[in-house]
């Protein structure tokens, strides 16, 4: 009898699990309409809703400032019994760590950070791979050999992106230099456009960027030069300038993460997906000549097959020191804490 009750209880438990929809929340740092970083996370969210349908209930909040302010938002979701909360910006790290300890039943997923707890995991993408590929395009297309890069914050993620891009440029064009300007914003179209204009004024004929808005693309379009986007296919913002962009494709990963939680197979193992996982990739417009595009596809293949790593030696830093000798390559730890520029970058780490 006891056994029967036990089995019944388990059956009921399983049934209740499959009936109740998983409650998922996304906390974004900028508005969904930014056309870039948050937009792509939100595309992933829509993909998740599409894929899992009735099995998930998803809520979002936009423009949540980083720092302690975010705590009340995470607590608000956790207290309502949400099963999994995605925080998509680096600056939420400490808030998420704190709240995750108070609500052990909720899974917290932090994008781009490095701290985990029993119920908090981290995930991010190897954006440096497509960044390198977009550098190939920029290096092949520039005529002035001055490439402008509107950078966000001087944090490892951004520095790594600049270096990967610069290595791509030097792979095809050792003469070209990458000029970096910091905006210290994730999303401020006015400021980011001004930063791009300052680079155009020194003769840059390709503008690359790290922020969430498409403003630098538009600045390039207005001057009739070329641009490399970020996050999403930004060709609609600058049809005559846009060459290529490293992009995010979060959807499949979000589906997997939510299913892991549903199936009880979730772990706090850090996840760092690359092109091979279809988490990141490159898009190119028709403005890129077939020869350049073919080179990009070939390099993309060898990255997928693990025959090529963008950060493999010889790599020199700005002061001429050999950082990685022939045959050496950067480890994940070194990539995640990168705080120096490669030799063809002009500009300083603030």
């Amino acid at each position, binding site marked *: 009898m006891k056994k029967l009750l036990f089995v019944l209880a388990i059956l009921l438990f399983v049934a209740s699990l499959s009936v109740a929809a998983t409650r998922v929340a996304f906390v974004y740092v900028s*508005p969904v309409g930014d056309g870039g970083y948050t937009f792509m996370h939100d595309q992933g969210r829509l993909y998740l809703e599409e894929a899992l349908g009735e099995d998930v209930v998803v809520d979002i909040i936009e423009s949540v400032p980083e720092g302690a302010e975010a705590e009340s938002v995470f607590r608000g979701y956790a207290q309502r019994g949400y099963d999994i909360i995605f925080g998509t910006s680096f600056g939420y790290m400490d808030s998420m760590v704190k709240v995750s300890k108070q609500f052990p039943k909720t899974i917290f997923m932090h994008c781009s950070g490095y701290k985990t707890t029993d119920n908090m995991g981290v995930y991010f993408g190897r954006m440096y791979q497509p960044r390198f590929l977009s550098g190939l395009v920029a290096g092949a297309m520039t005529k002035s050999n001055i490439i402008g890069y509107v950078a966000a914050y001087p944090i490892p993620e951004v*520095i790594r992106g600049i270096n990967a891009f610069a290595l791509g440029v030097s792979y095809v064009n050792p003469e070209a230099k990458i000029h970096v300007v910091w905006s210290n914003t994730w999303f401020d179209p006015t400021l980011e456009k001004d930063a791009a204009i300052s680079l155009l004024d020194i003769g840059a004929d390709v503008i690359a960027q790290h922020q969430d808005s498409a403003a630098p693309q538009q600045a390039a379009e207005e001057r009739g030069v070329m641009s490399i986007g970020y996050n999403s296919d930004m060709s609609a913002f600058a049809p005559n300038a846009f060459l290529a962009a490293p992009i995010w494709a979060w959807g499949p990963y979000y589906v997997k993460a939510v299913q892991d939680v549903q199936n009880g197979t979730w772990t706090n193992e850090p996840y760092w997906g690359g092109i091979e996982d279809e988490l990141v990739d490159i898009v190119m417009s028709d403005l890129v000549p077939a020869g350049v595009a073919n080179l990009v596809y070939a390099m993309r293949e060898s990255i997928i097959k693990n025959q090529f790593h963008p950060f493999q030696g010889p790599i020199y830093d700005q002061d001429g020191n050999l950082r990685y000798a022939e045959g050496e390559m950067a480890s994940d730890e070194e990539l995640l804490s990168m705080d120096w520029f490669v030799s063809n970058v002009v500009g300083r780490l603030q």
Partner: protein
Amino acid sequence: MKIKIEKRLNTPRYLSLVVPVVSIFAALLIMFVILTIFFMGRIGSFQGAFSETVSAYKELITWPFFNQYGLYSTISKMVPLAFVALGLSFAYKMKIWNIGGEGQLYMGALAATWAALFVFRGITSPILLITLVAIFSAIAGALWALIPALMKAYAKTDEIVVTLMLNYVAIFWVDYLVYGPWRDPKGFGFPGTAAFPEPAMLPTFFDGNVHIGIFIAIAFAILLQYIDVKTQWGFNSRIVGDNKKAATYSGIKVKKYTIISLVVSGAIAGLGGGVQMMGMQHRLMHGFSPGYGYTAIIIAWLAKLNPIAVIFVSFLFGGLLVGNDQLQMFYKLPISLISIFQGLVLFCLLGGEAIAAYRLKIEKAEEVPANE
């Protein structure tokens, strides 16, 4: 019969309570219409949209004010608002328009960080360290306000412009430090200082969700109320505020009062920055204040510069901010609608104030004798 609009000579007391209440109701009513239209686009039927709006309003009120966790958030949000508003009202009583609460808050936070991370590094007694950090932040706020105070007293500059401009200078100082020399070496380059040491964190209660800063704010409110009502300073400051000439003739040193009022105002706002660092943020970061110093101006004004009322109005505003987050989180409202709502509240409050300064006067038209 004629209806005339004329300026009130003096505003009746009951209006100072009625006007804000009616104004907030007006804002809620307009927002109700906007939300219903918005939800109709999403749900399709008026019935559904109406009940969704009602449920959103329930959320807006119950979570920040009647739910345990919502209350924690409300209290945490109100602390910096209350400090700055208390400081500002102290100066406003003398009709000295300190718009620099934001900058004084930033400088207070900066000095608190300097004290906690560098100057008093190694002090392990929490009481001693917290006191020292608090004193540093108050002094920094005071010094930051001393600049416009001296300029006003001795060069007759306009304090509104100077205090406002110094806000940006203060923010740039903080940015310079967190991006540069003070950046946490273990922070992976992220713009922010290292975390405060354990003894420099304010004690918390309610399971670590609320820090004792709220009691410090209330204590200051009571102290300021006492100064205002029971001391010579409070009496004299009212005279200075009402009529500078009369104050001079009665032997009050107006310059001294000007300087002290701004300096004390800055000290309280600066202390708010220190408390926010020790209680909430635990590290100095770029843009740690989402404009508390400006919201505090409205709070001081709504509270009619009464320190006790400042505490209650800060509580309401803290709750409003928390409730707005809830609307986004659980009703999928875009941030732009939330901004419209916050704008509506301010618009109605200021509009209400303006309208209340006038009254309608109904006059019987004078009989004009027929001239035939």
